[in-house]
């Protein structure tokens, strides 16, 4: 298995992990809506995952860039830009005092990210298989 195959195998795994993170976020948000968790605990819990998620995604994108997978890189670059922008504006962390006002926005964002990771998961899978086939030829 060559470099490209390994890269996309790694990307598939990362996409799966990110996917699960988003599912976790969404479950937590609906827990909050149903009053199963209080906003302070929720924010403490989710804030642990915010930066790792962003770093993981940025790392993956960097890998694409370095290995010359420009299509995959361009696919991911807007999200990296969005994340960086959020960190610069210092509103990447969930704020327990504002969470109810911004909850619908957070949920929407999580759903969009979920969809994005899902699409990219299948794309990476496809590219991985493609790489494997081309190698075996």
């Amino acid at each position: 298995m060559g470099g490209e195959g390994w890269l996309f195998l790694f990307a598939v795994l990362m996409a799966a992990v990110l996917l699960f993170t988003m599912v976790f976020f969404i479950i937590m948000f609906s827990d909050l809506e149903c009053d199963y968790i209080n906003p302070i605990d929720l924010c403490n819990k989710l804030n642990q995952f915010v930066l790792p998620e962003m770093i993981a995604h940025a790392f993956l994108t960097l890998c694409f860039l370095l290995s010359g997978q420009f299509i995959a890189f361009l696919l991911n670059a807007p999200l990296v830009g969005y994340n960086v922008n959020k960190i610069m504006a210092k509103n990447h962390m969930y704020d327990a005092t504002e969470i109810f006002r911004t909850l619908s926005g957070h949920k929407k964002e999580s759903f969009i990210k979920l969809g994005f990771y899902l699409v990219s998961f299948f794309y990476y899978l496809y590219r991985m298989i493609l790489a494997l086939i081309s190698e075996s030829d």
Partner: protein
Amino acid sequence: MSSEPLNLPQGWEARWDAQSSAYIYIDQSTGQAQWELPTQPSYPTSHHSTSSSAPAPAPAPAPVSRPGRRHYPTAQIQQMYAGGGYDQPPPVQPLAPGYGDQTHVAPQFFTPGMADVQQAQIPQGQFQQPAYGQQPAYPQEKGVDQMTNQFQNMQMGYRAGATYGDQKQLHSIQTVNLIGMQPDVRGLDSPPPAALLAPNAAVTQSPHIQPDPSYQRCTLAAMPTTQSLLNKSKLPLALVLAPYRSVREVDDDMPVPVVEDSVIARCRRCRAYINPFVTFIEGGNRWKCCMCGLSNEVPQLFDWDQRENKPADRWGRKELNHAVVEYIAPTEYMVRPPQPPVYAFVIDVSQSAVQSGMVATAARTILENLDNLPNADKRTKIAIIAVSTSLHFMSLPPGSTEASMLVVSDLTDVFLPKPVDLLVNLTESRPAIETLLGRLSDMFQEPQVGNALGSALQAAHQLIGKIGGKIIALTSCLPSLGEGALKARDDPKLLGTSKESSLLNAASSWYKTFAIECSKQQVAVDMFLFSASYTDVATLSCLPRYTAGQTYLYPGFNASRSEDAIKFATEFGRVLSMPIGLEAVIRVRATRGIRLAAFHGNFFIRSTDLLALPVVPMDQNYVIELQLEDDVKATTVVIQTAVLHTTCFGERRIRVITQAMPTTDSIAEMYGSADQIAIASYLVSKSVEKSMTSSLDDARNLIINKLSDMLTVFKNQVTSSAGASAQLAVPDNLKLLPLLMCGLVKHVGLREGVSIPPDLRSYAQALLTTLPCQSLIPYIHPIFYSLHNMSPDAGTVGPDGHMVLPPALNLTSERLERHGLFFIEDGQNMFLWVGHEAVPRLIQDVFDLPSYAELTGGKYTLPVLDNPFNQRVNNIVAKTRELRRGVYRQHLYVVKSDAEPALRSWALSCLIEDRMDKMGSYAQFLTQVKNKVSRV
């Protein structure tokens, strides 16, 4: 009911009924009997409609008092059998004097023979009165006058002209044109449109089944049935609450009735408290929840008087007669035994604080108010921490008269230097506390520059966190050391730009995180800020905002000016002596279909419908936006607010406020029932929020857009006059909303301008979101009186025992006269405007000065002189101060019409109908709105 039959009106006789242990009152002329104390003399009437069975001339046999036997609302039953039904007004209360021809009140008593019928009837359930529309029309000969009387009797509202006899009463809509008209500012005091409930909506006919608007009011008095209707109408749907408002004798307030027997009937499913709008079914053994429709059992002891150990009259229960009641909660409502009130004072003793005299004034005020601190059961605890470059803990051992000071200079990892004697019982350590406060300001004479406020707050939090309570922080400079240190960030270049809103947001997240910690441990923080320069109110006010405290700002405080010292001492004293509620949660419940969408005010939102307040201060306002997630099917919706709190005398209590309103599916009816004060209050909170999340420009646009949207819908849908017109039509009940919005756009919290310090803006915004309606309205639309030509009775006590105030004037400088004396008040400040041609006599009478030239403007204390005019002016000032709920004591400024341009323009900025800098006059504001309206 069992009150002594003293001072019976003429023509009434009281007889003791032994069986029911109560007096029965007999009208000697008609032979009618009733249980209620008559308030009006009886005189023979020729009125024919003694439709009810003639009352027994002898004392009516008492209700059969078999133990466990239930009592039913005799008045209603009587109506049922009275045949005539609504031939006569439902007996709500003895008629007020003055409604001459209706002296006849249906007696509320138990009629012999009725008991049987009653029992036979009850299984069919529900004391349903015949539907309103099926009633025969009112006899013609009863004039309009009488109709109005009946109207008032039914507590339907005070607005004559509503259509009658329809299936449902509707608000009449009078369209008013605003363009070219001077607004009638006196209309601001008028009550909101009443909720026109069906006559059988409540189980009792008490006049108090709807809360006073100062406790809770809704923007609409008729609830739309669907969200799409609400969206289409563009009217906001929000609840404006001040559940813990002060009850004062000067306002003729009724104290909140307390249900003492801890029988708390609640719905099993939605947990709503029983209220006047439930229905009793199955012979009164069960009640049907008015919110979710579930049938619940009536508690065993509901009809039992536990004190006297005898059956009680269910219809006399306070929760069925009052919209605002307080329950004494049993132990199930407690997480822990009721905690004592705890106060931790964090006092800044840095150089600027000592020099300005803040420390000395604060210490003296605490000392003077030690007796006024809520301490009914001698459990109140107190701690004092002085802070400058290091933390100074005060050890106050009980029984000793000596206090000692422990200095901790480690600001990063705050620890308590001593496990005991730092938080002490007020009563036990009183001598030490008094000694300490007596010499507090002398202890810190050597200048120390720097303020480790954040670390001190952490220390205070550690000290009282186990119990919870209130931290009162007094600081006169920006926190510069330790945790939560801030930098001066008030860049004048940002003012007036879209970046300005960043100055209205917190600079550091430390204060938010700390606020959450405090809220978790039931600690509230009050901030008293005394700034000579920038103190970052926006950041520091985060703590009070999320812990249900309050921010107080004293710009340029200097205790050597007696006005400053008095203002601070009075307000601080009121905060200290305020009876607070501890460890509180507010939950709002509403009829199925209604959802709480957003919250505005000082608290922490703990879940989608639960607000956590470590301390409930008095007279704080909360705004809650409502949405309709499902169609509302009920004909009456009920919105119930419950505040569970521990009183400062160690009782767990629940204050329940129930409000009911009919539903409607007509936009016209929604407009007819809209409450301009509540809408204004909602828009204030909404625009302040917008100014923080977006920009001040957006906030002002939001106000104008919302207003023009409403007026567009009103024009197109209600008055159905599409197209451009020269008029701006509003319903009569909203006619002052544009004026209030004009005031809001020009308010210092939202005004366009490059010269408003961010501190003042932030403070104004904090006030805008917390002031109760009664103070908020003057804050955005000040009161304006002309004093030099007021009528002779103004400023004196009128025949009704209340002070007569001069008529309020429109806020325009057209009213100012060169020789006049004017009074402007916005709830926070008062201005006495003196015209430069004022006659020396006037100056002499009011200020005791020979001429206008001698008078200097600025903060002023009016002398009390021995002449009637001075006394009347003083009376008006005193009355206005007394009128406003809340702790604030307004500064009085004397403004000379030709000197001190800054002060003069400040006073003129209160005249909101005028042009001001870039902002247009009220007429221009209306034109702007009208253009938007006709563009659609």
